[in-house]
């Protein structure tokens, strides 16, 4: 089905780990405020997560937007499913929905 060759790579990335964040920069050196917010929320909530720096991979930077039909970075995936960008993750965190999602999926570190 995947007409875009990058989709296979993305599919592999989002299924290899339970929590995957495509961001600009890294959690230690975030290079965009929105990416930084999401990585801090994940650290605060206490889940292990894999990150991919889209600034180091232009194919992924563009491919991920087509893959999820979402025009911006960061993008968070949980168990292969696109969960949202910065706005939605912040909203879910403030309402407790994000913590619930991780707890229900057994992903919250003890």
């Amino acid at each position, binding site marked *: 089905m995947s007409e875009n060759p990058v989709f296979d790579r993305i599919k592999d990335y989002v299924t290899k780990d339970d929590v995957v964040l495509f961001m600009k920069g890294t959690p230690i050196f975030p290079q965009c405020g929105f990416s930084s917010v999401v990585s801090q929320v994940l650290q605060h909530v206490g889940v292990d997560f894999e990150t991919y720096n889209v600034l180091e991979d232009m194919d992924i930077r563009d491919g991920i937007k087509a893959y999820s039909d*979402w025009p*911006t970075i960061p993008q968070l995936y949980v168990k292969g499913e696109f969960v*949202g960008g*910065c*706005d939605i993750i912040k909203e879910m965190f403030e309402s407790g929905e994000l913590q619930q999602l991780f707890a229900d999926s057994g992903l919250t570190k003890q």
Partner: protein
Amino acid sequence: MAMIAGEIEKLIKEDLPGADVRIEDLRGDGDHYAAHVIYEGFRGLSRIKQHQMVYKSLKGRMGGELHALALQTSLPD
């Protein structure tokens, strides 16, 4: 290249007829806005679908001309 608030509002309203659109210019640079869109057509849709509807109405400007749009969507009371 930046956008002006009125342009964003117009685009959203064109695709989401009857929506209440509140735009806030966060930094006065035409590049960082917050938008709250209240629209009956969001009923029953996930947040992701609601936001995708708004992004589509911006006809590709999101993430390009318009660097940052802090978006909030909700249903009318």
